[in-house]
């Protein structure tokens, strides 16, 4: 009768597992801690976002910024409802995001394997948003220079810009350097919307323009005084994390 016994690890397996255990144990300080009795608390503790201030581009070159401002103004055109994406600060928002943790995907898992995912799975390739914008904007301007009489995207008439964006969205355009048109369009659309609707503290949504347009009350968190007032508009103006003009003391 055959005897089954556990396979002995090879010398290599044994050594590598020991090495891995030591690395895993020693690489990072232990983050977990147990809390008993009272909850931990510190005076003056706060982890506030820093107010983004306009002034210079930290990620974009001037040409890239102009391109993105043109895109933002077509995705959110100025009309009688609100100002446009450029004036709302969407590109300022994006610029500061791209030099931060978002730009470098520092909070995402970005190792392989890289497989084509389902549409519902989002972006699956290895490039960071910063790399994608750098390549994407260059590819977009290369495309318009080639097909629109040597003009950069920002130099096109609004109607032509719309047409290019529509084709990007529909994937009808093949951008150079293997930039995926559809996925780059979706990236720009998502980020411009973030800039337009996010708290003004991050650089976009100037003067809470989008919130005023929607009637969104902003960074408030208590509506007990209003929940029972059915079919009445909420009376208070929107407020940002950084406050509102009503907080101005002089």
């Amino acid at each position, binding site marked *: 009768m055959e005897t089954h016994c556990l396979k002995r690890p090879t010398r290599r397996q044994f050594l590598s597992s020991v090495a891995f255990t030591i690395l895993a144990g020693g690489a990072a300080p232990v983050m977990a801690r147990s809390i008993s009795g009272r909850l931990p608390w510190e005076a*003056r503790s*706060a982890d506030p976002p820093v107010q983004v201030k306009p002034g210079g581009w930290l990620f974009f070159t001037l040409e890239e910024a102009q391109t993105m401002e043109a895109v933002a103004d077509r995705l959110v055109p100025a009309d009688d409802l609100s100002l446009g994406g450029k004036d709302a600060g969407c590109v300022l928002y994006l610029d500061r995001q791209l030099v931060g943790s978002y730009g470098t995907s520092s909070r995402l898992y970005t190792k392989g394997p890289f497989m084509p995912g389902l549409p519902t799975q989002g972006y699956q390739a290895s490039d960071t948003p910063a790399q994608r914008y750098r390549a994407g904007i260059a590819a977009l301007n290369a495309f318009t220079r080639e097909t629109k009489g040597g003009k950069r995207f920002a130099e096109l008439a609004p109607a032509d810009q719309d047409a290019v964006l529509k084709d990007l969205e529909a994937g009808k355009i093949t951008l150079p350097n293997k930039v995926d048109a559809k996925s780059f369009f979706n990236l720009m659309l998502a980020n411009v919307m973030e800039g337009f609707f996010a708290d003004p503290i991050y650089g976009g949504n100037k003067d809470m323009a989008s919130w005023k347009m929607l009637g969104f009350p902003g960074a408030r968190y208590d509506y*007990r005084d209003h929940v029972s007032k059915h079919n009445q508009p909420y009376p208070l103006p929107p407020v940002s994390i950084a*406050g509102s003009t*009503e907080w101005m*003391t*002089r």
Partner: protein
Amino acid sequence: MSRIVFSLTLAATAFSAGLALAQAPDQADEIIRGRYQAILGDCSACHTAPGAKPLSGGLPLETPFGQIIPPNITPDKATGIGNWTEADFRSALKKGIGHGGKRLYPAMPYPAYTRMTDRDIGNLWSYLRTVDPVFNPVESNQLPFPFNIRLSMMGWNMLNFTPGEFQPDPSKSAEWNRGAYIVQGPGHCGTCHSPKTALGADETSEALQGGSLQGWYAPNITGNSYIGIGSWSEDQIVRYLKTGTNGHTIASGPMAEAIQASTSLMTDEDVHAIATYLKSTEGGSTQKPQPIPASDARMKVGAAIYHDTCSACHGGDGKGASQLFPALAGSSIVQQPSAETLTRLVLQGSQAVHTPAAKTTPAMPSLGWKLSDEQVAAVLTYVRNSWGNAAPSVGASDIGAQR
């Protein structure tokens, strides 16, 4: 209780050999009573640093005259009070003169402890002899010249110090007298809650009417219904002292420490006695000033900040949410003459006291990063003058000084 008796008896027995004290058969009772005196007197508040061995010396006290470090009062012979006699200890508490004629600074509240009875001091001494001796040298006197001259306290005592045991008032109930004894004597409430003279002594004519210390304003705790505790029922005072929260307010800061280490461990009878006495005291004007009108520019700004920032917890009507968020409307703490505590709470945040009966410890976040000095001043002016509250406005320069 029997376990404490047993362990204390054991401790007493263990020490008796080394200390060569004459051990009366009822020494254990004395020690247990002395341990309770240490709770009433809250010795550990000053003499035990966080995480350190009991009574082995405390964190520096910031006084207007400089720093004093509460000494080691364990029975260690080299660095504690192991060489002291009971007479030395009695003299320290009654007269402010310690072993070898060394004069104490009144940061040690001997002006209050002098009211204690000989029996209570004797018991306390018996207890202190049983504490684990800890070798921990402490140089208490960190004061600058000329305050570092201990002899100068002789003059201070002549001006500011009335020695003498508490004299009961026969026209009052036993409970009232017990409360008065604790408040004026071992409990030394006035050490924080009485305003101070220029020399740092209690302003006895204004006892318990509120004082500023260590970056907090210890509020008026007389029976004044406007800025004192007059609007609290006796039961609410008891609940506050026993648990730190009473549906109106929640203790934090130095009072949280006093509640944890002292008042929450007092007997129910003693806490009731304190409440009875405090409610009977009078102090300060009960006349509310005219509130600042809502049309005032500061009030308008303050209202906007309040409703955007504070109302989620404290409520649009300032009523708070009983055990979780203190009420601001009608709160005497909010309407103190000084806004020092309020400013501190807004700038730094605060956490509620943790007691066995109130374990949630809700916390107020720090808003110092978000609000400018002018904005803090405006919102405090607003809460001090809304929903029936009325108190002087707060200036931006006061806020800046506390940042």
